[in-house]
């Protein structure tokens, strides 16, 4: 590990100023991703600016039904928050489906969103990887990629975004608030991760030095009946091979409102707009759910060793929506 300096920022303005003054700085949340990557040499910041003491650790409930989640709220506190569990159950379920208790106790919301990919070539600094070293190549395309992307990838990088939390945020139109030296800004969560294209090393659309301060969720009555389901290689404590966040409102047997996002299948949590369009106004039946999944997955381009993800995702989406529809009918 390279030499680096550690400092605690006392307020948001101080954190942003410290970052601007130190080229090669990184904000530090819980450290569960950054400290790990520093050990393996993937990250070698010159300065860590610890943001846990900035007072961004509250979840606020808006009177209109939305939520504003501070960037340093721990994943455990987020999942336990009564307002989150009531208004966006899929969000709490997604957080609890990730990592382990020890890691969720340390991990922050900001760090979760900016955690880096879990591709084995990315984390091994002796190997080429376009995301880590631009232009060095992507060995995963012809190599080990059974857990890589089936949607939205480019031949320059086929890694998937690992966050579970992010899948629920994508389904519910979250907005990311940030602070820079030039003042505050906002970005739709859907736009946080730019398309991979030929620049997989450009991992976010945030301006340089931006400190994430909060993530807001607009009011969404449909989200009160929502679910996150994750498939992984063991029953607990593993990254997803595929996951679905879904919310469904049925009126008189017809889909009135629906939200759908997929995890572990693209370089960002994948909002399933085509499936949502196909379903809105359709009968709430397994058949219609399957047709909607097919509409979304028509764009899928599996790699030689991850074709299993396409039927897995289809079945997952149909079963989650079927359960939600049955519960609504009860």
């Amino acid at each position, binding site marked *: 590990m390279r030499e680096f300096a*550690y400092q605690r920022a006392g307020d948001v303005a101080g954190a942003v100023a410290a970052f601007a003054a130190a080229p090669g700085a990184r904000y530090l949340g819980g450290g569960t991703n950054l400290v790990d990557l520093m050990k393996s040499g993937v990250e070698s910041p010159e300065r860590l600016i610890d943001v846990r003491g900035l007072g961004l650790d509250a979840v606020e409930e808006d009177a209109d039904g939305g939520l504003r989640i501070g960037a340093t709220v721990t994943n455990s506190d987020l999942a336990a928050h009564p307002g989150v569990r009531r208004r966006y159950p899929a969000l709490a379920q997604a957080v609890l489906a990730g990592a382990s208790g020890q890691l969720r106790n340390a991990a922050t919301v900001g760090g979760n969103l900016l955690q880096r990919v879990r591709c084995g070539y990315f984390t091994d600094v002796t190997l080429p990887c376009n995301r880590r070293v631009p232009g060095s190549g992507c060995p995963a395309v012809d190599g080990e990629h059974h857990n890589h992307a089936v949607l939205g990838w480019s031949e320059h990088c086929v890694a998937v975004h690992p966050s579970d939390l992010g899948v629920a945020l994508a389904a519910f139109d979250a907005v990311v608030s940030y602070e820079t030296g030039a003042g505050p800004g906002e970005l739709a969560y859907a736009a946080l991760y730019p398309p991979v294209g030929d620049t997989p090393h450009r991992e976010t659309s945030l301006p340089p030095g931006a400190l994430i301060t909060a993530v807001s969720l607009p009011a969404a009555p449909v989200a009160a009946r929502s679910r996150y389901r994750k498939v992984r290689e063991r029953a607990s404590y593993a990254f997803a091979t595929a996951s679905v966040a879904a919310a469904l409102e049925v009126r008189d047997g017809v889909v009135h409102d629906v939200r759908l996002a997929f995890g572990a299948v693209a370089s960002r949590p994948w909002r399933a707009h085509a499936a949502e369009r196909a379903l809105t106004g359709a009968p709430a039946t397994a058949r219609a759910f399957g047709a909607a999944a097919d509409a979304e997955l028509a764009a899928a381009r599996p790699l030689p060793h991850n074709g299993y993800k396409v039927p897995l995702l289809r079945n997952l989406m149909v079963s989650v929506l079927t359960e939600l529809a049955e519960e609504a009918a009860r």
Partner: protein
Amino acid sequence: MRVTLTVNGRRHQADDVWEGESLLYVLRERLGLPGSKNACEQGECGSCTVRLDDVPVCSCLVAAGQAQDRDVVTVEGLADPGTGLAPVQQAFLDAGAVQCGFCTPGLLVATDDLLRHCPQPTDADIREALSGNLCRCTGYEKILDAVRLAAARSGETAGER
């Protein structure tokens, strides 16, 4: 850098700490507390679990500076020196949940935390609470027995009170 923190109720100070050291390293190599174990060093095995400001974390992924002025409880802090082993420790021994013992300190800290929040856990609660702790020896059945035993015993003492 100098790191000052409270460990098992006592103020400690470590000097000349390198920023790149983990809390786990500081505990083991600088403060003479080798109970927390160092196995994967990447958050995957839980053998380094300690309570940090009252919640269990993987101390291998906590940078030394992050621990400044914070409150740590390690496996060494579970037992009351006056009364001998903590009930969870005794239950692990009695149930035969210890083989090589490398995973045991982390499991004890995680189990202690589970039983504080959930004195009568279901098997599902136990499995989820301990899912961040890997054991390569026991096959986990004896560990589940140990947690059930600790919970049953604390239920009995609660009943006697």
